[in-house]
């Protein structure tokens, strides 16, 4: 008789981040992401255009009503480009985190009937949001081409990828943490959009952040990795220099990693009994 893979089910399992298992299930990550994208725009008349329309309209409104207020700063690029790039990056973050939490709840039925690493649900939600970002990013490139062709020369792919990773890691961290909480307390379903809105005001989405107190500014930078994400994004697209020192950036990355590890840890702890609680 040939040797067979043994699997042991027992009451107490040693804690692991479950990365090895995720690799075994990578095809399921792909298929969950694919389904999320498919379902999102089914039976909508203009389908995927919604992705572009939302930041576009917001940009228009902000440009009309708020540009006077914030244009006193020097942005190095036309204000509407600054706003649009900020909004699409912000949408990547907020929709990733929101769908991650909502999908845990809407997948309750699947969770109760089939085993798979539950991490796949928030992970695929974040990945699905990435497609929206790429599409709205293409529109940004079109704007830049029309407005100021030479600006394209400062585009840096490596920074762009790094920025997307920072934003996705932070949204995943937040999504995982709130997913774990929402399994027990449904309150967090409503708390998350509010929390995200708060973060919006302390992130350089439609204005750059200049606080009179340098210590506070630095603390804010460490607390909110979106500042790092946004700054790298604008460095990648427009070549706007990052005002932080290498040391500060490394600390921010460290904080981000702690957030993510905490998110995964909390989620994995909840995962054990998720089918009984949800």
């Amino acid at each position: 008789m040939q040797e067979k893979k043994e699997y042991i089910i027992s009451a107490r399992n040693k804690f692991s981040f479950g990365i090895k298992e995720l690799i075994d299930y990578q095809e399921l990550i792909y298929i969950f992401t694919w389904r999320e994208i498919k379902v999102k725009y089914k039976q909508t008349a203009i389908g995927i255009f919604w992705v572009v329309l939302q930041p576009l309209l917001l940009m228009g409104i902000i440009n009309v009503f708020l540009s006077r207020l914030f244009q006193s700063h020097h942005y190095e690029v036309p204000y509407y480009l600054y706003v649009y790039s900020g909004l699409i990056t912000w949408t990547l973050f907020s929709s990733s985190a929101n769908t991650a939490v909502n999908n845990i709840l809407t997948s309750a039925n699947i969770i109760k009937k089939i085993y798979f690493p539950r991490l796949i649900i928030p992970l695929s939600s974040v990945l699905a949001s990435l497609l929206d970002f790429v599409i709205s990013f293409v529109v940004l490139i079109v704007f830049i081409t029309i407005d100021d062709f030479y600006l394209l020369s400062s585009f840096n792919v490596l920074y762009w990828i790094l920025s997307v990773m920072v934003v996705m890691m932070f949204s995943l961290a937040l999504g995982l943490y709130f997913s774990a909480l929402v399994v027990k307390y449904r309150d967090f379903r409503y708390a998350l959009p509010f929390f995200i809105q708060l973060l919006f005001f302390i992130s350089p989405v439609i204005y750059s952040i200049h606080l009179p107190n340098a210590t506070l500014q630095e603390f804010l930078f460490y607390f909110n990795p979106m500042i790092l994400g946004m700054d790298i994004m604008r460095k990648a697209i427009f070549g706007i220099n990052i005002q932080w020192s290498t040391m500060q950036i490394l600390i921010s990355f460290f904080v981000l990693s702690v957030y993510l590890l905490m998110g995964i840890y909390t989620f994995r702890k909840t995962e054990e009994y998720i089918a009984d609680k949800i």
Partner: protein
Amino acid sequence: MQAIIEIKNISKRFRISHHKQPYLSIRDSVIDFIHQPFDLKNKTSVEEFWALKDICLDVYEGESIGIIGKNGAGKSTLLKILSRITPPSSGKIVLRGRVASLLEVGTGFHPELTGRENVFFNGAILGMKRSEIKRKFDEIIDFSGVEKFIDTPLKHYSSGMQLRLAFAVAAFLEAEILVVDEVLAVGDAEFQKKCLGKMEEVTKSEGRTVLFVSHNMSAVKQICEKSILIEKGRLSFFSDTVSTLSKYMESNTKNGFSGSINLNKNIIKKIEMKCDEMLSDTFYAGCDFTIDVYFESKDKLEFPVLGVLFKDEYNQPVLAMNNKHYRNNLVTKEVSSGIFRMNMPFFPFFSGNYTIDLYFGNQYRDIEILKDVAAFMVEQKGIKGGIEIPDSKLNKFLVQKVNWSIV
């Protein structure tokens, strides 16, 4: 030989907290705390409930084991632990092979996606590789019989079509161990038969290990050689399917039923069932069937009426009769006690398992209703005085006293 599934002392405890909502809101927790901040004892007003207690079982390769028991006995919890959906509270299971669990057909089906897309998603979460689904796709569609609508969104399917598609995906799962919950209890009779046939093929000719939960006794009998009986979270009996089933039927009625049950309710005190004038819980088509209901009432009963309702294994009523339906069967005298006898000289059912509800009353209303008072089994064998057993697919029961002639 090493067992392919070793279940060692598996227990599962649930804590039932006495909150009414299935989940908490922070507000509730805060209010609880404000109301009784120091009352620590009361705070843990949780009740412990053992859904499973010390289950031990070894299953060998190629075996198919039926799991039977009443609703809430812990059957589904056991399957959930085996399929890793929920962890046990204590104990250990060793699995030596890939497990595919089928606790529901069509898990994750999305109404907006087409049939094709749903097949891929459903197959993937059941553990099939994409290449595997692609390879078997034509077979799956063929089995489901919905190829015409395969690129139509699922929401336009009838529920029967959805079900067929769902089962078709499940039928092509390739795993050494298959864990199947009551998934056949839905769909029309013909489709159920097709599914059962497929299950039988999977277990018998492909030699896979199957754990099968069902309330459908004939399905269990058809698929599983051995069965376990779970009662109140404990494994109470493990033997070949026929003996386990009869053990189950026995325990279904409180006093170890063999045709006679003492009830001691307000009016109905005792029931006896007789097959050809012998106490029995097993009958056959055409036998002489009698129910004696012993009753005693404080008040005199005018025109007592006895209603007997037969229900099949899906709990569906199949035959209801009372003495008001039959001329010359009305009891016209006032009585307060006695034996109410219903006799069918020609028992109409062919096969299956039935339960009985009794309705006892006067000509205006029911005075006592007893649900599921008795259960019995009908064996399929030659009909007394009959010539041939009719097709049981078309017939549930046979109407007696029909005159056939050529004029």
